[in-house]
């Protein structure tokens, strides 16, 4: 007699209340995770209206031999060295300030926190952790120098220069 009135719920089985509590909490957790995922996706822009990474630097005769030319708008240097033309990023590897070429010292210097680089991008000193990266440079069919700011190339390698 007494055996029948006992709850049919020894250890493992859930009673109805526990089941619905778990179901409710589980659904809410899934909804919360979904909301977080949607929020993250929403905050990440899918389309960017940013300038193209490829910059037209013009004809090679704009750059005399042994010159370092900064293009302020695109943040790159076009350097005409004995080995040929190459391009360096002008954006400091420390915190992203625009560096400047100091002709009287023959170095590239950052105005923000005093990092210094050689003409080939190598780091001389300063808080910058890395050298200035070399950017891919090539000539198009019209004889214009093009630089792809999104692509780094190994420094001082034959294929990193443009020779005319």
């Amino acid at each position, binding site marked *: 007699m007494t055996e029948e009135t006992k709850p049919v719920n020894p250890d493992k089985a859930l009673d109805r209340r526990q089941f619905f509590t778990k179901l409710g909490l589980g659904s809410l957790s899934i909804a919360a995770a979904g909301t977080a995922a949607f929020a993250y996706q929403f905050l990440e*822009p899918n389309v960017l209206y940013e300038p193209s990474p490829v910059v037209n630097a013009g004809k090679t005769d704009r750059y005399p031999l042994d010159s370092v030319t900064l293009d302020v708008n695109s943040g790159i240097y076009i350097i005409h060295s004995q080995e040929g033309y190459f391009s360096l990023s002008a954006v400091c590897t420390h915190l992203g*300030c625009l560096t400047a070429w100091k002709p009287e010292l023959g170095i590239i210097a950052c105005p923000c926190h005093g990092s210094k680089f050689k003409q080939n991008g190598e780091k001389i000193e300063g808080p910058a952790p890395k050298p200035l990266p070399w950017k891919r440079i090539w000539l198009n069919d019209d004889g214009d120098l093009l630089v792809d700011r999104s692509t780094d190339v190994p420094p001082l390698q034959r294929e990193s220069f443009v020779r005319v």
Partner: protein
Amino acid sequence: MATKTVDQYFDDLRGTRVWRSIFRSGTGSSTLKRALAIQQNVFLHLFSTKVRTRMLSFSATWYLGTLTLGTFLILVATGIPLMLYYHPSAPQAYADTKDLQFVVSSGLFLRNLHRWSAHAMVFLVFAHMFKVFYRGAYRPPREFNWVIGIVLLLITLLLSYTGYLLPWDQLAYWAITVGSNIASAVPLMGSKIHFLLLGGNAVNANALLRFYVLHCMILPLTAMFFVAIHFWRIRKDGGLYSHGSEPATLRAKTTVPSMEAQ
């Protein structure tokens, strides 16, 4: 019939049906009525109904927390009118800032008041924290309110940082370039945070809009939320900290003997 005093006119006003429908505590200045006036007001009920008189003296707190709230209120009151002339778009933001400076009536005054109050608020937040720290007012049971205070310090700094971009001049551009690159130093997810903060790879139109929304909506609302908790916790933690209010056992452990004599 005797003429009424001004106080009696106020008492009559407090007795009217309209007044009583808004403020329930009623007339009279008994301790109970005055306590009820605080307790039954949605804004004031955050505070204690009773305060020790000496805690209201200047030397107790130097009024630093209240002054911080004051600068925050000035910033809200000047910031909202500034929003009426400012478009958070790359072609217009700088021109609007110059208009506010040179063309809009009282624009210069509002903008400068906003700027100086922002500087003052950062200073006062730090001063408030030093005062709380050196008085030992951060100790139990007030340790959680210190944590809320740290959150409010961070919100204050973020408000200053996001507001810095809005004039959209060279100073703003490079300051945010440098500042957002600091965020990329976070391990593993640094560049992702940088990208989400700016809404792009560089400080651009998206970044300006995001900083505007953070500066004018998200951060002020978050600040108000935490300020409310901050004030409520003062009451919950037994009122403003005073040296004599601590249990004698705790006081014995933490004070220099010469201070006991005072």
